[in-house]
């Protein structure tokens, strides 16, 4: 990886972050119907209180100055103050980020492994009944809304069989011992993570299958087979490596998808993460928290895309040469 390439990528990243911050400002502070103006304009305040509120939010400054103040706040990591929790937005989010990372991280690992394995099975038996079943099954799971899949799992494993906990992250009362605690969280994690895996693995299995089917007819694969290597070794050893590139590109976009899924799944399973926080702040019209969560999600997706771009560059000899 050349320094020039890296420099260009970092410059693009900086520009994207700047545009994202400005886009957030536009959404929450400029467009008509934005929460700060609605609060200040609503008739519930005496003229004096209104003036004070306008001053407090800096609405008496020209828009450009408001924008500069906003940029300065963002640089200082000041994302505003929650209406509901009466705490800084960063504090409110701080308690939720870890829970979402655990859920999304676990789900992502399993999703990629399951998706790729099924994609490889489908591709190595392309146009067979197995292939068709995996493709149609993937499409069927892909067509399920995350929240609906979650609700079905609640019926299956919670309401009807009481096999697994369906709500929250810990059983109330279970406090003693790190081991007991971890095990308890793990049990609560199973159904929400499974929901995300079921819906999202389909995307990976479809992409892996389609790419691999195209790769498997290329000359070097035929050569490897002619050399006497077993079919299994050619598929898993040679072809899959090259088929992984589109899968990696998809992984960048996938983060945006799984975060959307996390909002639904955390709502259904009352998993106390960023998604549930978004749901609650929409319900309670806690706009500063909503803004902070959206900003963090955007940053997460941008960062993942940046990393997946770099990895792509490292892995693909064809891109590296240019």
């Amino acid at each position, binding site marked *: 990886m050349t320094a020039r390439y890296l420099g260009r990528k970092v410059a693009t990243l900086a520009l994207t972050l700047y545009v*994202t911050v400005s886009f957030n400002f536009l959404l929450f502070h400029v467009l008509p119907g934005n929460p700060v103006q609605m609060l200040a304009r609503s008739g519930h305040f005496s003229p004096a209180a209104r003036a004070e509120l306008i001053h407090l939010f800096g609405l008496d400054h020209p828009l450009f100055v408001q924008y500069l103040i906003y940029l300065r706040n963002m640089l200082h990591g000041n994302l505003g103050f929650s209406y509901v929790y009466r705490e800084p937005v960063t504090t409110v989010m701080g308690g939720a980020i870890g829970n979402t990372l655990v859920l999304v991280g676990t789900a992502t690992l399993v999703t990629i492994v399951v998706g790729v394995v099924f994609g490889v099975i489908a591709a190595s038996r392309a146009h067979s009944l197995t292939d068709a079943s995996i493709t149609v099954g993937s499409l069927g799971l892909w067509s399920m809304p995350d929240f609906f899949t979650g609700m079905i799992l609640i019926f299956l494993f919670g*309401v009807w069989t009481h096999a697994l906990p369906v709500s929250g992250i810990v059983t109330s009362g279970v406090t003693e011992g790190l081991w007991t605690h971890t095990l308890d969280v793990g049990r609560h994690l199973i159904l929400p993570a499974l929901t995300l895996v079921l819906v999202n693995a389909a995307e990976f299995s479809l992409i892996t299958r389609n790419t691999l089917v195209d790769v498997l007819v290329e000359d070097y694969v035929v050569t490897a087979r002619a050399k006497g290597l077993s079919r299994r070794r050619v598929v898993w050893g040679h072809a899959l490596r090259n088929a992984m590139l589109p899968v990696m590109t998809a992984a960048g976009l996938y983060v945006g998808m799984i*975060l959307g899924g996390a909002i639904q799944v955390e709502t259904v399973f009352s998993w106390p993460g960023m998604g549930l926080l978004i749901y609650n702040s929409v319900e309670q019209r806690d706009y500063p928290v909503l803004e902070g969560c959206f900003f963090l999600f955007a940053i997460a997706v941008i960062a993942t895309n940046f990393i997946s771009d770099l990895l792509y560059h490292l892995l693909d000899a064809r891109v590296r040469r240019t």
Partner: protein
Amino acid sequence: MSDDALAGAPGAPLALGATRARAGVWRRLWRDPMGRAGVYLLAVVLLVVLVGPLVFPFNAQDFGTSASSILQPPSAAHWMGTTELGQDVFREFLAGGRISLYVGLSATLIAMVLGAGLGLVSGYYAGWRDTVLMRITDFFLVLPTLPLIIVLAALFGQSVLVTSLVIGLTSWPQTARIIRSQVLSLRERPLVQRVRSLGAGDLRIMRVHILPNVAPLIFANLALVLSGAILAQAALAFLGLGDPVQVSWGTTLHNAFNSGAMSSGAWWYVLTPGVGIVAMVLAFSLIGHSLDRVLNPLHGGRS
């Protein structure tokens, strides 16, 4: 109109070819088992959604008369049981599909016009216009879609119109990317070059020679965007950001979830609207994937 007369002659065979190609697309879709399954499923869904409410109209005010009519399992009187207010789940289900379909279609229309339009301009003119438009596209491509839709719906209200607009305005980037790359290769074709040297205007070339050739690709993408739009509408409504007046499948699931249907074991209340969403989305994604397989130049039509 001399440019029309001049361009007409070489334009004709290409346009004709495109028409023939389009007819071929539908035949190939029908011959693909996956595509045909999608068409059948879509026919059933449309019948249920468009004709169903006429046969079994839903009256939201038709509450149960006693406590014993609340959250009842399926019976002869209520084929799919009753809600927490004693309403008929089956009739509510028939009524709810229309909004899901309506929002899906109008959002997709917006996304297609934006995506295809930007992709066309970007790919055709190339150069600095392409660079600027694709930078904008990439920015929106990266933004997490559902969180953005939720934020916009929370800020701008919950009517069917706002929901359609919000989903449409966030669903176009992928379309723009796909159309652009196809147009980029089309504009280099000898025929397009020749027509241009004959003096045909940009708009005419785009309309007569480029658009008909990317139309099938637009259709394949349309079906997939439509599935995504229906899922997005369902998620919004489930999270309580649906139109409070118009019932949709997502709204029914929102009510079911928040009225304790889960803990009461009222599976009929959850499963009925859910299956509706899955059937509608699956129909469109079967068709979309089949078209994509048949048309995508990357797969070389091998499958």
